[in-house]
């Protein structure tokens, strides 16, 4: 049943002489929710940006659904990959509805189809369409803006969604609320592959079906949260988990 959808084969990324990622290999299967956990400078965002072609690997190859990314039409590829970032990145000169409609418009959907989709998505992220559709991003709170960010990423029902520390700048309450939402959304949409970068270990364990722990451009461990907690591969992972061990019961409770 598992179908490899994102594959990295001996991927290297360097900026000048600075090697960010020496040799990265992993496979993500269709429909998986994978979290990439690491501190800043660990290469996690770099990894994500290579998946949607914002950055090109210096060596090695990346396969998306079996095809080499370098041979794909990047623009087309990105239109089928949702992208949510920490700074939210809503366009300030567009209303909420217009923001969500950016990619559908590029794909030349009809007006009525776009309207219907915008309404549907706002409901999915629990924002009342009648109230929010015609507002501007600056009129919404950070949490509401990020809900729109998520809605926009899902607009064309893309098979992949990439999240780059989307909840990093939100307060703890809003963050946990949005974490629940994103989990619910992933469960409600079949076969969507979510790649979620975070430096928050609780978030990584709570959301990920598998967690990829990165350090200095290398994967230290790539396993389910249970395995990660029970059998940390290295002292580094152990140390990382130290802070969480005491919360284990709490997240396990939510996870089951």
């Amino acid at each position, binding site marked *: 049943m598992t179908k490899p959808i994102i594959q990295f084969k001996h991927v290297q990324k360097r900026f000048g002489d600075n090697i960010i990622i020496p040799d990265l290999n992993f496979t993500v299967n269709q429909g998986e929710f994978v979290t990439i956990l690491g501190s800043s400078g660990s290469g996690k965002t770099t990894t994500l940006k290579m998946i949607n072609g914002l950055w090109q690997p210096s060596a090695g190859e990346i396969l998306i659904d079996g095809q080499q990314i370098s041979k794909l039409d990047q623009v*087309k590829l990105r239109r089928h990959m949702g992208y949510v*970032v920490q700074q939210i990145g809503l*366009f300030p*000169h*567009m209303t909420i509805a217009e923001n969500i409609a*950016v*990619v559908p418009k590029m794909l030349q959907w009809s007006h009525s189809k776009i309207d219907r989709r915008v309404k549907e998505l706002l409901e999915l992220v629990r924002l009342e369409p009648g109230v929010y559709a015609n507002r*501007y991003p*600056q009129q919404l709170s950070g949490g509401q803006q990020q809900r729109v960010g998520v809605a926009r990423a899902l607009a064309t029902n893309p098979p992949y969604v*990439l999240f780059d520390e989307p909840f990093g700048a939100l307060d703890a309450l809003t963050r946990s609320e949005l974490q629940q939402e994103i989990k619910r959304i992933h469960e409600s949409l079949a076969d969507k592959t979510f790649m979620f970068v975070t430096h928050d270990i609780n978030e990584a364990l709570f959301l990920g079906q598998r967690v990829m722990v990165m350090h200095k451009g290398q994967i230290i461990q790539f396993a389910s949260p249970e395995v990660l907690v029970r059998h940390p591969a290295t002292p580094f992972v152990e140390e990382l988990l130290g802070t969480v061990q005491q919360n284990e019961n709490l997240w396990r409770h939510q996870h089951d």
Partner: protein
Amino acid sequence: MIEYWNENWPVMLEDVQQHAVMVLSSLGIALIIAIIIILLFLRRRNWLNGLVYFFSLLYSIPSFAFFALLLPVSGLGMRTAIIVLTIYSEYVLLRSFITGIREVDPQLIEVATGMGMTKGQVFCQVQLPLALPAIFSGIQVALASTMAMATIAATISAGGLGQLLFEGLQGQQVVPILWGTVLTMALTLVCAGIVQFFAWLLTHRWKGVMEK
């Protein structure tokens, strides 16, 4: 003052009209050139920087000297004036356009690219609309400075409100100088108001929200 107006108003109105034509055509030409330069060179940073530097050099030529230097090339009259004024406003426009476009949050540009916009779409849908406030403020600065500078064009028989100033200067009369000044200011205000209106038309929906 009123008396002077009563005696000379047909000439004065003609001066205003000439002045407006001179300034607005210079600005219009400068605007078109700025747009072409931006479209051609936006992605070629060095070229663009070089061009800005080149125009800044031209900008530093004293206007009076510039008019005089062009006389052998394009002769007396409004044509020379328009060339000079275009070059002066080009620098202001180019500078503010480039700054406006470059100051658009690079994160937004990356997100737009990440969403699958082509370079052209990123420019038209994200960079340009967000740079509009800066672009319009550049147009305002260029407008005001060109309005003032255009008075000097009277020395090369280009007409305009400068004629009133020089008439006053030569005849040692204050009244024509005052009229020239007042009319220049009035014309500037009216034109600035129109530019402001267009800026408002294009940006008030989202800018209004931001300033609240």
